């Protein structure tokens, strides 16, 4: 048993950190935050050249064929750097769903261009009256290969070349410029990942597969999102500890006061615990499918609460500085709130955990012995 990273995983993570630090420093993040779509074509090409856009997809579709754990490490570093734009939407959401539900020919058409960095995409799932995880597609319906309905909180829809849409009757691919597609910004807290309302009005669509096959893909995306949240928490913690060491009041660094120190200690506990949960969820998705859904929901549940409290504590320790526009904290804090709710908040995932562990009486007791067979 070894719950640490392998040497190649350490290298991947380290390279990603250096890449984002060089190509996407905070002043660049701030510039992109002013643009609405927060998309930078040049950065996208460089990320594709690193192989990031095909990281977990099969080599036959021009991917790198790496594991979910590798994706998680990359996402953690993207989160630390607050990388703006459609990477999460394209790779973690759309790519994994296509990989899970589509035919070989469709993967060549849709997944391979994603891997090569030629196409951006997203998943349109959430709609009014039907939140996350409603696999029946809500009210959006397909009639004779044409979609009608409205999806909300669709990340990065504006810059997507095509959208993956859940609807009654399956999962569909829709070209961004197809007739009847209307993309309207939903201006929100997060300035670095834009969300949109997307209307389909008798829009031609190609069925990729059944929504029932996308459960695992959504779990991979959720684990990736948690990892990104962990990276953000780590950055807030680092900034806060640094500030507590340098800011002086009453003649000493404020980090010498226990009221401040204990806030930092709790941030550390919450960040590390989220990281443990994210890494395990990723590992389970690769190696322990029977427990993966629970592991993913545990991770998203915990991190959804933790990313909010870590942000709260970080701003509090920064005092007035933490409340300014000029300080970077609020950019992370905004992302954290968006990520907290995306793909289900803590309340959503607690209910999912309840369904998995309470509604199957006896199952959890049997599993106690199995728990020890791994880890």
């Amino acid at each position, binding site marked *: *048993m*070894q*719950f*640490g*990273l*392998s040497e190649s*995983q350490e290298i991947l993570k380290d390279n990603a950190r250096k890449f984002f630090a060089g190509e996407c420093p905070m002043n660049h993040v701030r510039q992109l935050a002013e643009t609405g779509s927060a998309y930078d074509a040049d950065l996208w090409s460089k990320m594709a050249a690193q192989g990031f856009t095909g990281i977990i997809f099969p080599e036959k579709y021009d991917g790198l064929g790496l594991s979910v*754990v590798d994706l998680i490490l990359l996402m953690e570093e993207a989160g630390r750097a607050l990388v703006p734009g459609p990477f999460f939407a394209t790779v973690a959401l759309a790519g994994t769903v296509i990989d899970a539900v589509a035919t070989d020919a469709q993967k060549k058409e849709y997944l391979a261009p994603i891997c090569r960095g030629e196409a951006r995409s997203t998943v349109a799932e959430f709609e009014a009256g039907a939140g996350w995880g409603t696999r029946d597609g809500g009210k959006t319906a397909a009639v004779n290969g044409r979609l009608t309905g409205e999806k909300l909180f669709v990340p990065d829809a504006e810059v997507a070349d095509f959208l993956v849409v859940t609807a009654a009757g399956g999962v569909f691919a829709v070209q961004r410029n197809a007739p009847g597609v209307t993309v309207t910004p939903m201006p929100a807290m997060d300035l670095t990942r834009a969300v949109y309302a997307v209307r389909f009005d008798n829009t031609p669509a190609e069925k990729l597969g059944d929504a029932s096959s996308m459960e695992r893909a959504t779990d991979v995306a959720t684990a990736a999102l948690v990892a990104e949240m962990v990276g953000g928490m780590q950055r807030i913690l680092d900034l806060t*500890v640094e500030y*507590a*060491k340098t800011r002086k009041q009453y003649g*000493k*660094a404020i*980090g*010498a*006061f*226990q009221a*401040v*120190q*204990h806030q*930092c*200690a*709790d941030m*550390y*506990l919450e960040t*590390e*615990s989220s*990281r*443990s*949960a994210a*890494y*395990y969820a990723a*590992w389970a998705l690769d*190696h*322990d499918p029977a427990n993966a859904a*629970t*592991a993913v*929901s*545990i991770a998203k*549940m*915990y991190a959804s609460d933790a990313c909010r409290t870590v942000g709260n504590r970080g701003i509090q320790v920064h005092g007035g500085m933490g409340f300014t526009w000029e300080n970077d904290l609020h950019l992370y804090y905004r992302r954290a709130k968006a990520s907290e709710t995306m793909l289900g908040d803590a*309340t959503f*995932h*607690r*209910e999912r*955990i*309840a369904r998995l*562990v*309470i*509604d199957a*009486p006896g199952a*959890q*007791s049997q599993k*106690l*012995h199995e*728990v*020890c*067979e*791994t*880890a």
Partner: protein
Amino acid sequence: MDLNLTAEESQFRHELRGWLKAHVPADWNAKRDDPLETRFEYLRTWQRQLFEGGWAGISWPKQYGGRGASLMQQVIFWQEMALAGAPPMANALALGLIGPTIIAFGTAAQKQRYLSKMLSAEEIWCQGFSEPNAGSDLASLQTAARREGDFYVVNGQKTWTSYGWIGDWCELVVRTDPNVPKHKGLTVLLVDMKSPGVSVRPLRQMTGESEFSEVFFQDVRVPVENVVGEVNQGWEVAIGTLMHERGTFGAGLQIIYRRNMDRLIELSHEVERNGRTAAQDPLVRQKLAQCYAEIEIMRLNQMRAFSRISVTGVPGPEGSIQKIFWSELNQRVQQVAQELLGPYGQLASSSSYAVDKGAWAYGYLRSRGNTIEAGTSEIQRNIIGHFVLGLPRSY
């Protein structure tokens, strides 16, 4: 990253599981509520059995009668002990803390004299660390030892001494030089609890039990060969002991929490709430799921920490998050249990209406001690702040 057990680890688990299946006494649950003395002799007999089976002191090197188990094997040991519902070992402090300290700092003669009787539970050990005026600030302790010929003469008082009432020997931290900074004047002594001048008074805690004692030392003579490590370098020895306190034992604790959780889920299907079972109540479901998830995260945090120790060889101060995590989590779980059971949660074992023989009432009260014993949550947060995050010392 590979969370599967290696073939060797699986083999170890298999062998241990088989042994426990054949040896764990079936009547332990009935014996739990026996009077302290009877219960203790029962645990002594159980440890003797483990010793004879080669399972006592598994972390100890083979040359000292231990099993020389790897860190993961120790983790497996505590998991399997908990899974099998095995009784605890009588000489827990000796096996987990004091023995390893003597192995690390003791003389050859001390090792020869004390270690094997620790393993067999022939001699029970207690730990004389905390004092009425030295709790979190342990280094300010006042119990004094002055040299007289070949003896140290000890005067003072210790408190919160686990196993004080039954202890044959005590690992005692004393002040041997009052004229130097507080960390520099301490020495660790091995004290025979039957020495003239030692008196023990049980300390009754809020649960009604007496797990701990107060121990008084009046002109107690301790031979100089009973010094562990160097004179006036007892702080290093004591810290060495306390580092073991954050060892692999927590792996078993996690299993016990998980078992409590499984029981709460079971109870939620039986308890009625507003015309339906508690398991169908959305609010109860939220709370149970939160507890379940945190108990799982406790396991994952432990596994990450153990993995790191198995690579670096030393337990780091990151252990502080484990202590905060398990202690505060147990308080939350116990509170959820109280909410689930309503007024029944308060019933003592003597009530015929009590759920699970009053275990939840006891667990709720006992959990208040969790965030105090073995380093308060406040001290653990100080340790994280200073030693992990590099913030300035606050005291």
